[in-house]
């Protein structure tokens, strides 16, 4: 039905928009129409130009060519505030809130309840609570935002955008760090808003979500529009074809779990009763070189906490870690790195990326750290390492010297991953490694991880994507309520078994 509607009735139209960044044509002659009362998916590979299109519409970046028509008139917003005031409400890709302000303030900035020109805090804070309640979130809104998890921060950002009561709502990968329940309530809200005639643009890399909630799909590839389709009429395989411009070589998905015996091979890592009061009940776990252990569980189940305790980012108050029977001191991340451990964290904006440094510098950072700063890696070798990784992971960048901050979100994630992969640790912990990464690159990354394991790396992967865990883990540890509740091996590793363990 929505697709029948002609562009004349569109609330937001984009005509012939172009945008060039140094060395990249991020958008070329892009057309796009959003009608009231539809949820419109904007899809494409990492670096296809989705976020750039959104930023051009909302005035974060000036456009080089084309028109943006909102509600029948041409608009030229100079900054995001202007677009917001016109009635275009946006959640940008990274969580873009102020960590030092309270949750309530983040929700109510520029919209505080005023009385004679001065802020009236009581109704302001009450309104903030109401905004969160629509998403089923009940937290202390007067605590600083930065003290909450990424998932909660993302929900706050969504709540803010929804509460703006706009004509158009734009959500750029809002579900990247949400769990299934939270996604469900977000979709319910999106459907309600659609029912009230709002037009919603929704960017995601999860195709299930596209089919669950959207009416139409526009696909971008290399900054150009491939086409707009009615979701119900487009088969998944065709959609992937449009996004990649090629067929997706089927990933040799399931590892043959029971074929290999890991005992005795490579390094042995033993974690004994590692825990910390109020953070994590003591957990024991053994891994050997070449093995991939999946860490499953809902958000807040203790996955991230376990990773941080092993790495020394948080101090454990009980337990020990042994490598080949030798106890290791894990007082700080530096100790852990020196012992050959590596952690690729969940929150890339806060803990991972150095936005001003180039792709090459970001990639060699951990390797250089392991060698010590007194033995610099020769320039030619650095370039080779960086180029190899750019190719292996398909990082979309004009050259290796581009500042990482200028890459698309998914490509930044690939750079962090590359950093830890080249450091060749003996034990690598990945926390949500494929968040925001497109379907094509997903397969490449899993392939690369498997190769590294064949060379003797021990790997612990925390992920909320069960499909991914099932695809490559040799063993799965299930966490619930900050406790290890189950361990599945070999043929036991199926999605349903994991869900059962989580839910029990």
């Amino acid at each position, binding site marked *: 039905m929505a697709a029948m509607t002609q562009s004349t009735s569109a609330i937001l139209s984009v005509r012939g928009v172009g945008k060039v960044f140094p060395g990249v044509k991020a958008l070329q002659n892009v057309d796009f129409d959003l009608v009231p009362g539809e949820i419109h998916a904007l899809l494409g590979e990492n670096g296809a130009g989705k976020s750039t299109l959104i930023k051009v519409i909302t005035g974060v970046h000036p456009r080089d060519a084309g028109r943006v028509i909102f509600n029948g008139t041409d608009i030229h917003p100079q*900054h995001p505030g202007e677009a917001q005031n016109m009635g275009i409400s946006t959640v940008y890709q990274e969580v873009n809130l*102020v960590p*030092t*302000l309270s949750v309530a303030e983040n929700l109510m900035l520029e919209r*505080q309840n005023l009385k004679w020109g001065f802020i009236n805090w009581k109704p302001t804070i009450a309104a903030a609570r109401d905004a969160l309640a629509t998403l089923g979130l009940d937290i202390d809104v007067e605590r600083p935002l930065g*003290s909450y998890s990424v998932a909660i921060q993302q929900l706050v950002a969504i709540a*803010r955008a929804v509460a703006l009561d706009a004509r158009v709502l734009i959500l750029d990968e809002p579900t990247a760090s949400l769990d299934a329940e939270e996604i469900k309530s977000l979709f319910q809200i999106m459907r309600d808003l659609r029912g009230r005639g709002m037009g919603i643009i929704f960017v995601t890399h999860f195709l299930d979500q596209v089919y669950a909630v959207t009416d139409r799909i526009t696909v971008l590839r290399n900054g150009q529009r491939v086409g707009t389709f009615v979701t119900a009429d487009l088969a998944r395989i065709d959609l992937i074809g449009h996004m990649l411009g090629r067929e997706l070589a089927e990933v040799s998905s399931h590892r043959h779990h029971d074929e290999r015996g890991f005992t005795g091979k490579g390094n042995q890592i033993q974690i004994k009763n590692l825990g910390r009061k109020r953070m994590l009940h003591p957990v024991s776990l053994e891994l050997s070189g070449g093995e991939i252990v999946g860490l499953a569980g809902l958000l807040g189940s203790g996955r991230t906490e376990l990773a941080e305790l092993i790495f020394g980012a948080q101090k454990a108050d009980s337990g020990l870690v042994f490598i080949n029977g030798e106890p290791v001191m894990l007082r700080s991340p530096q100790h852990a790195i020196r012992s050959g451990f590596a952690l690729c964290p969940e929150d890339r904006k806060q803990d991972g990326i150095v936005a001003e440094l180039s792709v090459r510098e970001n990639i060699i950072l951990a390797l250089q750290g392991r060698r010590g700063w007194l033995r610099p890696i020769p320039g030619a070798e650095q370039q080779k390492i960086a180029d190899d990784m750019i190719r292996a992971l398909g990082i979309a960048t004009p050259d290796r010297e581009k500042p990482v901050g200028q890459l698309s979100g998914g490509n930044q994630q690939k750079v962090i991953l590359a950093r830890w992969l080249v450091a060749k640790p003996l034990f690598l912990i990945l926390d949500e490694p494929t968040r925001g990464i497109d379907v094509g690159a997903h397969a490449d990354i899993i392939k690369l991880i498997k190769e590294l394991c064949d060379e003797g790396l021990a790997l612990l992967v925390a992920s909320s994507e069960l499909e991914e865990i099932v695809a490559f883990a040799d063993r799965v540890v299930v966490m619930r309520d900050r406790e290890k509740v189950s361990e599945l091996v070999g043929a036991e590793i199926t999605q349903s078994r994991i869900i059962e363990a989580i839910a029990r």
Partner: protein
Amino acid sequence: MINERYYPLLATLAVCALLYGYGIYEHRAFSDTYVLGNLLTDNAFLIVTAIGMTFVILSGGIDLSVGSMIAFVGVLMAELVGGFGLHPLAAVVIAMIVGTGFGGFMGYLINKFDIQPFIITLAGMFFLRGMCFVINLDSVPISHSFVSDFGSFRIPLPGRGWLSASALVMLAAVIVGIVIAHYTRFGRNVYAIGGDRQSAELLGIPVGRTTVQVYALSGLFSSLAGVVFAFYTASAYPLAAVGVELDAIAAVVIGGTLLTGGMGFVIGTFFGGIIMGVIQTLISFDGSLNSWWTKIMIGALLFGFIVLQRLITRSFSGLRAGAG
């Protein structure tokens, strides 16, 4: 549990209470309201300057021009009153308009050309100091009955002390500062910009306009400080208030405001200024100590507060993990 944002403020209050308590314990005279009244009067211009500085630092910037502004405002008023025969109140209005305008102009340059505030306000500092000498080379008195009335105005306090006009202006400025910081959208936007400039922009905050306003506000407060200073000394001197910008920054930091912006309180700055005054008074009461000990004590306190801030910002990520 107390919100972690209040920790630095609590530390400031504790230090203030400790120092004052120590003074009372050591010297009986310290408990007299006379000491309090003098503290408020002698540090009035510093605290007024530091309030403007608080907003600048909260926004993630710095303003080095405030000391020169104080001298410039004095020299300008002396010229307006002495040379042109204006009433001092008219001179105050003109001086504060000029000061606010100059601050806003610096903010405009910082925003428009995206230059480090450090550089622009350093230039402003030299420029204003130079302008003082263009107007006047020497120290001149500002003689007018209004000025002497201002100087002799006093509200008695219980005991031997009193509140001077300078102290009253300063207390009013503190209240205005608190209201702007906590009860206006502008104030909250300043905190947001200092907390994360890029996010603030994406949240729709008018970052450019707010930046201009922040430096204009600092110009307003520092020119008010200049007025207080000129009336308090009843004179103008081109080399007055050299280095006050650094004292103001110290008061803000000792008052618990994060040097990188985004967190802090105007009331903290008030106590920061008082702490610096108490240290000075303690050392002069002691008599045996060289007055440079004031600087040493303030230096030590600054170290302490910067370390404290570091610990608090770090505890943020720790908390996040706990909440995850």
